[in-house]
């Protein structure tokens, strides 16, 4: 492995000071499941790696604060899958977290890392978009909050400066809950990077929020207020054109080796309809 320095700050302030000092030459280590590969392959050559795991402020990694469920930078996928609050309020996020790699990966990979990497195929991006999650970013001069939809920019790009640190991702526990479901398309049943990631959510007002990834430079969120999609009584024929229109922005790369663009485009409404059905079932189960 290439050589680099290692620091493990005990507080967020210490971490920020290190980022301030090293800027671009520092890489943050949370779960490490992507970072260690990046380091081994020398895709980046940082001077120091800043390990967040000794920062006590980031524990417990999942907590409820003022009507929001907070996932700190240390919250790993298996904790999210197992968390009863997530299962109750945000089952689609649990579903997405549950298919990130193997159990060994899920025991290490963090939600924050999944979003900060800016991968178009990030499984957790669609549910976070549907649930209206925000990213909390700390810097030396204060903290800012950005909607996940604004935070994600493109492949490998997010709205984060080298001196900033994502401390948590937060989802509001809404009074009008969104019933959502997550699904994906893969090449095998075992662990795989998805060629489509998709989350569909409906709420009591008839709004449908659909987010999908891996079919363009970033995961996209599309909202339907017509009420047709969310209507349990509406026919599949009535829904089909509305659903189709929601995928108009999909632009799968012809260079992907995971699936061709024609297939991906054809599968979006198939997966969309399936996730929508599950979401509506979940909605009607809400008392």
């Amino acid at each position, binding site marked *: *492995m*290439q*050589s680099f320095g290692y620091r493990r700050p005990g507080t967020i302030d210490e971490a920020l000071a290190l980022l301030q000092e090293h800027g671009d030459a520092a890489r943050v280590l949370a779960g490490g499941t992507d970072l260690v590969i990046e380091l081994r392959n*020398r895709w980046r050559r940082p001077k120091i790696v800043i390990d967040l795991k000794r920062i006590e402020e980031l524990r417990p990694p999942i907590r409820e604060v003022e009507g929001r469920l907070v996932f700190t930078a240390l919250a790993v996928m298996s904790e999210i899958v197992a968390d009863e609050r997530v299962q109750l309020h945000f089952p689609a996020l649990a579903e997405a977290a549950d298919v990130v790699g193997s159990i060994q990966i899920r025991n290490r990979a963090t939600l924050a890392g999944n979003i900060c990497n800016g991968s178009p195929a990030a499984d957790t991006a669609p549910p976070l978009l549907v649930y209206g999650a925000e990213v909390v970013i700390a810097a030396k001069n204060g903290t800012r909050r950005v909607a996940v939809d604004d935070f994600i920019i493109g492949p490998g790009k997010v709205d984060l400066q080298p001196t900033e640190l994502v401390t948590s991702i937060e989802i509001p526990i809404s009074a009008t809950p969104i019933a959502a479901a997550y699904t994906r*398309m893969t*090449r*095998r*049943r*075992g*662990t*795989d*990077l998805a060629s489509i990631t998709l989350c569909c959510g409906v709420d009591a007002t008839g709004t449908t929020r659909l987010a999908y990834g891996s079919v363009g430079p970033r995961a996209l969120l599309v909202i339907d207020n017509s009420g047709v999609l969310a209507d349990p009584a509406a026919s599949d024929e009535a829904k089909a054109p509305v659903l189709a229109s929601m995928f108009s922005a999909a632009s799968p790369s012809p260079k992907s*080796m*995971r*699936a*061709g663009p024609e*297939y991906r485009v*054809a*599968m979006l409404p*198939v997966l969309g309809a399936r996730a929508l059905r599950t979401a509506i079932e979940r909605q009607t189960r809400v008392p």
Partner: protein
Amino acid sequence: MKVDNIGAPAQRLGGIDRVTGHQRYVADLPIADTLHAKLVALDCAHARILSIDTSVAEKVPGVVFVMTADDLPTPMPRFGPQYQDRPVIAEGTTNYHGEPVAAVVAETKDAAEEAATLVKVEFEELPAIFTVEAALDPAAELIQDPSIRRPGPFTETNILTEYHFGWGDVDAMDADMVVEHTYAWPMQTHFAIEPHGYIAAPDGDGIIVWSSIQHPYQLQKTVATVLGMPLSKVRVIAPDPGGGFGGKQHPKLEPLVAFMAMRAGRPVRLILSLEEAFQGVRRAGTEVKVRMGLKSDGTLVFQDYVNRFLIGAYGDTGDRISAKASFLSAGPYRTPAVRIVSQAILSHTTPTHPYRGFGIPQVTWARESCLDEAAIALGIDRLEIRLHNLVRYGEEHVPGDTPADGDWAQTVRKAAEEIHWGTPLPPGQGRGIAIGVKSGPTTGLSYATVRFLADASVMVFSGTSDMGQGARTIFAQIAAEELGVSLDRVAVVMGDTAVVPYDQQTSASRSSVLMGNAVLDACRDIQRKIRAMAARLHDVEEAEITVDRGVVHLPDAELPIVDVLKAGLGRMGGEVVGNGEARKEAFPDHPLGGTALFFEFNCTACDVAVDPETGEVTILRHVTVGDVGLALNPVQVTGQDEGAAIMGIGHALMEHLILDDKGRTRNLGAIDYRIPTSLDLPGELHSFSIENADGPGPYGIKGISEGSLLCTAPAVAGAVRDATGAVVRRLPLSPENVWRAMKEKT
């Protein structure tokens, strides 16, 4: 003591080390004072090397030297199992993606890796040839300079070899119907979980080479040749490979590591990454064009094949794979006229290496799929058309070759019964059935030594590699049975050419038969000596004594062999040594140089469901039936058979190497080359053995380790077609390919 080791589910020898982590694979060997090597390769398929600047790399602390072609003898030593065309390291040009151009040797892994990134290679990328079509273009660049080719009619082309097999006159045959299609099989990689590893160390005036190789004696010969040493000075130690599947048969980078160790005067180790292993070895992609003529009742009247095997930049075993597989293109079916043209075509890709099935899965995919097409067109049941044409026990399917050596219809009927062939299925489900047959070895030579020690324990010495198939256990079972000792008193020593006698190779599911017979022969040698002892001890004529399976039969008594051994050796102790040999002689007039020692015969049937919207295939039930002769160790037979079936399912559903438009492999490594996981198993998987004890090995066994992947793909594709009507002729049966076929059908 009467023992019963034959057909017993004996626990694996070496099993305890495998479950405690103490099994030492090459990368685990603690060899003092070892240097670490790292390869340098170019990120292109074909290039002219203009210059290599190692000066910066050599300044990295800990670097001992950087090896390039300039540091090797002139002319560049070349080697290979069939053709001596592979350079120790690339010289002048690189001819496949990943071919090493330099190697760094350093005190630490970190230093070697760092320095490898600092070797500056100036090169000019050249257009690469990596499809059959491009290679056969008369204007195509020659992949190999004629100077390294054997003279022949194809020297000025990219065809390495072309074979014509067959009998009868295809053109004169009168068929009621002719079906013709082309079937493609993609390049695939072995993906042994242990990446290849090599260590070499100078040893006096000789050398020791450790390698995860299947054929240690072939490696010994290769290293001796390139270094100009006698065989006696080259010691090869081959720890049990962590999976081989054919990919570890022949030497690859050992000559380079040997040269580096000689130059360093110290041990040098090179453990490949999985990506490098993918670049080092692969399976041939094929295009097989089949024409089948049939009578309206389904009787085959001719089969006509053009088989194109896209092999790599060096011959390796590409010629033999294409020839041996093509020879059996027509399968186990009675066919009056057969014509087979087989080509091994060079390309700027990783050299083609043996891969479990040795080309048979590729031709079987075409034949069995085409036979399904014929059956459907004729309105004949797909099982019936197979049984109708299948040769009977003792009947020749290839004139002049070994006739059918089993009751093959019994195997096919068992598979049909276990898949409930002919019973109704719900909509969206379908069934498929296919037959595979593969020749075992056509020639072969194995020696074994067995030492019967004074305390009635036994050591078996064998040059076979135990790469998971369980050869060690099989040999121990044979020795225990013949010498009348319990299995836990038998040790099997393998993988060291300084210790074990010669074995030609570990391949072609040969070891239980060939080496098994050699071990049996060695035990018989001991039994003869025991008989002489008994005659002396009991004062009877040798002719009046027989010895078998652990028992000495005297005219008026029976004694355990062990008692005779102990009495015979007396107070001085000592041992009785037996030597054994097994040969499969060559037949120079045979197109393959020899007839099949046995056949691996398999019938696979499955029941699948296909998602009508996405094309995803779910195998609900998968049945594989093999004619094994006799299952000497049923647990190991099941393990090998299920393992091959699952590997075959991987080949059918998901596995393929993907090249980019410049011939570079895109899916190097585990992220984008998908193999089956525990979640990708069929809903039910059942393996059955047909046992008529009619094989040429000890107690009637046949080889078994490849059978259940020979015909997996056509069985699954047939089931997909049965479920959906969609026909896929180009693997894999990925959701996307099945979806496309479903769409094209409508």
